[in-house]
């Protein structure tokens, strides 16, 4: 059952939005991911992900102020919807559940190698 579908990159994006709280718009999200995870994020990938998340109802957006360095273009701020929060929690819980099911010995054996 695919209740809350959330891809890997989408998860990172939505988590970053949560971190940024009220200051999440595309460039800040990109900067945050790049600085925290040390991976480059292309504008294309990011916007596609944002749009997909919005289409799924996990995010909602509103236009922000237009600034000079954006040549008068508005910022699009994102915030997480209730559904989005549920999806995040669901993702975390499923992971945790899976983690807890892993036998402890696995890591020890690996270490012994």
């Amino acid at each position: 059952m695919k209740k809350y579908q959330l891809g890997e990159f989408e998860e990172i994006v939505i988590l970053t939005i949560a971190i940024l709280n009220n200051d999440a718009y595309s460039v800040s999200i990109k900067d945050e991911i790049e600085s925290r995870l040390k991976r480059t994020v292309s504008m294309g990938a990011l916007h596609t992900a944002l749009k997909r998340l919005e289409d799924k109802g996990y995010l909602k957006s509103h236009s922000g102020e237009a600034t000079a360095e954006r040549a008068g273009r508005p910022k699009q701020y994102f915030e997480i919807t209730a559904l989005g929060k549920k999806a995040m929690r669901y993702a975390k819980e499923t992971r945790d559940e899976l983690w807890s099911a892993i036998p402890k010995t696995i890591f020890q054996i690996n270490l012994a190698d």
Partner: protein
Amino acid sequence: MKPKYTPSPPALFLRFFRAYCNPDIQSYIEGDLFEMYERRIKQSGKRKADIRFIIDVLLLFRPGIIRPTRITINVNNYNMLRSYAKIGWRNLARNKAYTTINVAGLALSMTCGILIFTFVKHHLSFDNFHQNSGRIYRIVTELHRDGIAYRSSVPSPLGGAFRNDYTFGEKVARVYTERDALITIKDKNETIKFKEADGLAFTEPEFFDIFNLPLIQGNKKTALTAPNTAVVTEAIAKKYFGSEDPIGQTFWLSNKIAFTITGILKNFPQNTDLRAGIFASYATLISYDRWLAHDTDGWGGIRDGMRCYTLLQPNVSPTEVESVLSAYVKKYRPTSKNVHQYKLQPLADVHFNAHYGGAISKQKLWILAVIGSFLLATACVNFINLATAQALKRSKEVGVRKVLGSVRTQLFWQFIFETAIICAIGIVTAIILAAAIVPYANNLFNTDVSINLFSDRLLIGFILALWIVVTLLAGYYPALVLAKFQPVTALKGKPTQQTLGGFNTRRTLIVSQFAISQVLVIGMIVIINQMQYARESDLGFDKEAIVMIGAGGDGNINGKEALKTEIARIPGVDKVSLCFGAPASDNDWGNSIRFDNSSEEVNFRTSIKSADADYLSTFGLELAAGKNLSPSDSVREMLINEVMVSKLGLKSPEDAIGKYITADGGSMHAPIVGVVKDFHDKSFHEEISPILITTFTEDYIAYAVKINMANATSALPAIEKVWAQQNPDNIFEYTFLDESIAQFYEDEDTMLKLIKTFSFISIFIGCLGLYGLVSFVVNQKTKEIGIRKILGCNIVDILWIFWKEFARLVIIAFIIAAPLGWWLMHTWLQNFKFQIHLSIWFFAIAIGGSLTIALLTVSYQVIKAAVADPVKALRIE
């Protein structure tokens, strides 16, 4: 406050981004892009920022960001197209008059388009089939005296010297073409005679290395090395020997020189200026013309037909070669006042350069192409005019379609589709018409164009392109107008002029159509008048009832004199003169003379006309001073003309009498005994040349026979009889002098025919357009006419209302056309040294004619509306 920031990322990619991006999110992403861009400029400079920007834009090109495709995508076009075709066809069938006018206009102009295209293409393809054609040049001569003259030929030794002295030419070939050659084949006891207008060419073997003219029999290397050998084309071989094997057969040139055929050339394609069909070995030239074949004497002058072609080494520039060629002038012609400059003419220029006898200038081809496009444009304009007028009738259909859910693009394409049907009918008609009239057009305009619809890919491409372009040009505007109708107004009733709009557009179209046709008409009138002037002016000599008969053979002067006496005895012959040519003729022997025992040549060219003592009386030439030549068989006395007198700097003709002239490199030396009044020795394109008439019997190659027209029918056969007895091996040829003078204006004649055709077509198409516009306006004003009639207006008054409107358009068109026509025709007249003045009457006729035609067209429709019962006009609501 910070200055307003305007980022300048690569504009092309920004545009690309804007083109594909979903408009909902475009401004946000654009903002991001700008923000990143500016940050990167600060971090790493503009270049890197630009590159990153481009990468970003390209990476953004992915689903989710690209704008969604429209919903009205047609999954199954076929049914819709079929419906369009059906509806379109029904519409055309219902409005037969409208369809006919449109198809006729389009077909007519497309026919012109197709013919002009084929013609232009044919000429542009001349001699394009030789390998290395970019490196092939013809050496030509500029003659610098008091003016510059141009010759496509060179002194005969030039080619040989160039080949031996320099390594610039990979191949060099001399070709001497003798035009109008008499070829005979001696078959047992019978002699078969042929006159080859394109002539026989004495050719060096390298000619066939330069040009791609393959032999189908014989060896290219050896066929033309030995004297008295020749290669001929398949066509000539068939003509002379039928189905017999031509190799090894013999034919004679001028009954003097025999040639054995050693090879057969594949027939030449149509698109070449190399016209001769018989190529004889150059080694034979010495027995035909000793002077021409001589290694140093030949530098003395230029014989027409002596050509030199060269294939330059790669990397050799023509200017380099031209600069070394000038050394020959210093070496071989150090004292001549006739200064030669040898130039290299690229092969691609040969067909187009009028200086060197090119067949047609590129400018003329351009003019034709422009006229062709004009005609097409007028036809499109017409179509637009008629179709928008017609649009009223379609408004209900558009309304219904819109209500049922058609979107604008669908309607737009529907009407484009209908236009495409009309165009297709037009183009098919045009192809049939073009194919049908091509032989007549070739005949009329002296061309040799052929239409091979199935093998000529370029032509097929052109026709398809024509179809698409005309469809879009003609259909775009009406389709737009129709598709724009508001369904409510369209269904409620007649859309008014306002909703249709563009009445001014249509006026402009009409004005431009009439301007074009008036320019053509002005051109036509001027050409007709100039031609009439050239034909009917007094040329200074008598050209009526004079027959020029070739002297034939190499009979000595006594034989010619005897024949002359015999011809003079024939009843119906008034006078006979033995001469080099008529007073005005293409045949012309130019010479540098010395005057009054001076050791220096004069700096102008003198045309020597050899003729006997009867020349003046036969042609009715008049003397200004002195006396006529006395009969003589050597150069004893000379006559000159008035132009010569003034060029020599003499005050009056009398001053020239008794002075001595030395000509032909010193072999002629005689006193001037008389001065003839000036006569035109060339066409009106050229000034009258200085002329010298003397009894140089070697040059007598024609009899000028003045015939009493009453006995003309019996005289000519009688002359032929005595002539044939004297010259059994030759062909009797004659021309009427007035006809050969008319030939001077062949080009102008062709042009006149063309411009007549085009003005007719353009006026016709213009009238179709006018007719369409008038029917539209009359339709609009039906009620107005009705009310006016009730209030007591008569037909003339109503006509006047419309006449005023359309006369104004024609007059505006004339105001545009008149200066343009004046300028064009003024430029054209500069081709003539003797020209008419551009009279105001030419313009008056043009405007008068157009006004009459335009008003007649208008009247037909208006009268129909004006005589109608006003009750009917007013009842419709």
